[in-house]
């Protein structure tokens, strides 16, 4: 199992913001912004899996895409292996691409329908390596073997496969250039339950085999608990809590994490029914117009006056545990000041 204290940081994200402009009126002027990701900071250590959880629309997928700079981030810094990604010029970025890859949620939509499996997996090889045709084909077969796809299918089109097989193609494609870091954006959400476990197991096997680092984005808390080493919880564009998996699941600090975890079904129906479930009132506010103060103040069961005034800082309240909540500012006021910077523990 992974040990956070000794590992090297592979990915460092600092105050990442991804705002999408809202255009309106006759001349389509920018009149506002959807703050999909609004000041997010976290680290991912080499070889670990960081789970990123949150409700639909909280910005976790945007965050994942922005980390790989599939969007142009509004501001902030992203470092992969010490190299800045957020502001890298296009050519440099292209050279960095092989190191970081993505597995998408919808395996159907993420594969070009007019390319064969071999074409899809082989394209990055053509772009970034100087392999001969024969070598490339060998590599394609090798990758197909690795993800458990029959080699005979190399010349088929994506629509000829089942959902699980398509996701394997997507994974093989992501692995083609030996990446270090893979963002898995809800990789199992579109799959049948019976297939989900297979794909997750495949991801774990590959992690062991190739020493991969994952940012695993999911709204499925059980699955994250299964696969992740550490977990970050997002709400309305911000990370509200981050910590090692077991600690976070056993003793959530942030009221939102608490509410989220209380909604996870328990295998035992009695304990599930008896569990003290926290039902959140109201809807998630619009990311175009977040509330003043803490983003969660409109729905928080433990809301205080200060929450409606001041946005709580995200800071380390215990070693390896970060939270953005005024509840913990009262208990640990002295740590205020270096909150947004998770320090090395």
């Amino acid at each position: 199992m992974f040990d956070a204290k000794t590992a090297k940081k592979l990915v460092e994200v600092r105050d990442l913001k991804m705002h999408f402009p809202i255009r309106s009126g006759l001349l389509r002027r920018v009149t506002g912004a959807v703050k999909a990701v609004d000041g997010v900071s976290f680290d991912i250590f080499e070889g670990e899996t960081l789970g990123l959880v949150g409700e639909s629309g909280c910005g976790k997928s945007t965050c994942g895409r922005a980390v790989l700079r599939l969007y142009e981030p509004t501001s902030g810094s992203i470092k992969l292996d010490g190299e800045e990604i957020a502001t890298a010029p296009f050519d440099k970025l292209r050279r960095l691409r092989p190191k970081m890859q993505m597995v998408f949620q919808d395996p159907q939509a993420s594969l070009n329908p007019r390319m064969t499996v071999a074409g899809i997996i082989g394209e990055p090889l053509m772009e970034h390596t100087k392999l001969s045709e024969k070598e490339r084909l060998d590599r394609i077969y090798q990758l197909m073997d690795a993800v458990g796809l029959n080699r005979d299918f190399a010349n088929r089109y994506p629509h000829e496969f089942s959902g699980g097989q398509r996701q394997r193609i997507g994974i093989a494609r992501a692995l083609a250039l030996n990446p270090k870091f893979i963002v898995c954006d809800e990789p199992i959400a579109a799959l049948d339950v019976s297939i989900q476990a297979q794909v997750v197991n495949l991801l774990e096997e590959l992690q062991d085999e190739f020493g991969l680092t994952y940012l695993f984005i999911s709204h499925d808390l059980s699955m994250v608990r299964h696969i992740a080493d550490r977990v970050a919880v997002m709400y309305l564009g911000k990370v509200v809590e981050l910590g090692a998996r077991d600690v976070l699941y056993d003793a959530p600090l942030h009221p939102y994490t608490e509410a989220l975890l209380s909604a996870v079904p328990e295998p035992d129906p009695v304990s599930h029914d008896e569990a003290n479930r926290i039902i959140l009132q109201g809807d998630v506010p619009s990311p175009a117009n977040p509330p003043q103060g803490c983003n969660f103040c409109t729905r928080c069961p433990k809301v205080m006056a200060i929450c409606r005034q001041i946005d709580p800082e995200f800071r380390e309240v215990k070693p390896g545990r970060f939270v953005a909540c005024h509840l913990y500012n009262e208990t640990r006021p002295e740590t205020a000041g270096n909150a947004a910077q998770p320090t090395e523990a």
Partner: protein
Amino acid sequence: MLTYTIRRLILAIPTLLFISFIIFLIVKLSPSDPTAGLPLTIPPEVREQIRESLGVNDPVLVQYFKWLKLMVWDEPLHLIENATGWQVAPEGPRIISYQTRSPVMELIIQRLPQTLWVVGTSYIVGILIALPLGIISAYRQYSVFDQVGTFISMVGFSVPTFFTGVLFIVIFAVNLGWFPSVYDTTHEVTDWDSFVVQLKQIIMPVMVLGLYNASQISRYLRASMLDNLNQDYVRTARAKGLNERVVVLVHVLKNSMIPVVTVIALNVPAVFGGAIITEQVFKVNGIGQLLIIAIQSGDVPVVQTVSFIFAVLIVLFSLIADLLYGVLDPRIRYD
């Protein structure tokens, strides 16, 4: 795919028979008289004799079956004889135009080159303009380029060709004197100079029609590109670290072209149909002008035959569009 094609072709036969009969009835039952265009000095008895000699007074069904037999049997054989020199054409009557008293097919064959030259070129020019316009408009949605492109497309789409055509003539032929206002259909391109002459006389009709075609196709392409640009596979392509040019031109464009190619194929019959108004404005005496004059002078065999050929082309190109769809999109298979 072959069985599919054959099945579609067989199914097309009753469709075309039905269409031909409907066209025939519409043309026949509308008040038209091949002698109507003659001067009033020609007395009624003579008009009656002319009508009689043209067979206008035969029963409608007799006329229809006479025409149909010639259209599907005799005329194709004549075409084969013309093309190959084999002596296969039957003796006897052909489909004769009321106006010229000559075989309708010869008229069509004579006019096809002009139409293909002018309308065909304009179609190609239109596509060539539409491709970059649609791609850049979609890629830079809401940019100044996109706004200007949208404006020009709307103008090209909504301003009728009889207006732009006359406007072009007044500006470029009358005021500037750059291009001729009357198309010389007998001009032959034999060397560089004659090519320049051809270029000068073709440029105005081609631009008028090309603008219209470009507007239409670029709109389709833009919409289709926008659909595809937001797809995950585009993100995949970017994540692969591909060049942006490759992402847009290979991944996005290839997928966006599927519906656009269909639209382009479906519009090809219109190229053969010519552009009635533009041909009239620039005196490019092609198929469109043949049709309109035939309509005006009640020349039923010409109207009937030209319309029927259009119908055949439309049926044929819908099939081609469907087959192209199958070729371009691996998700579609005809078995």
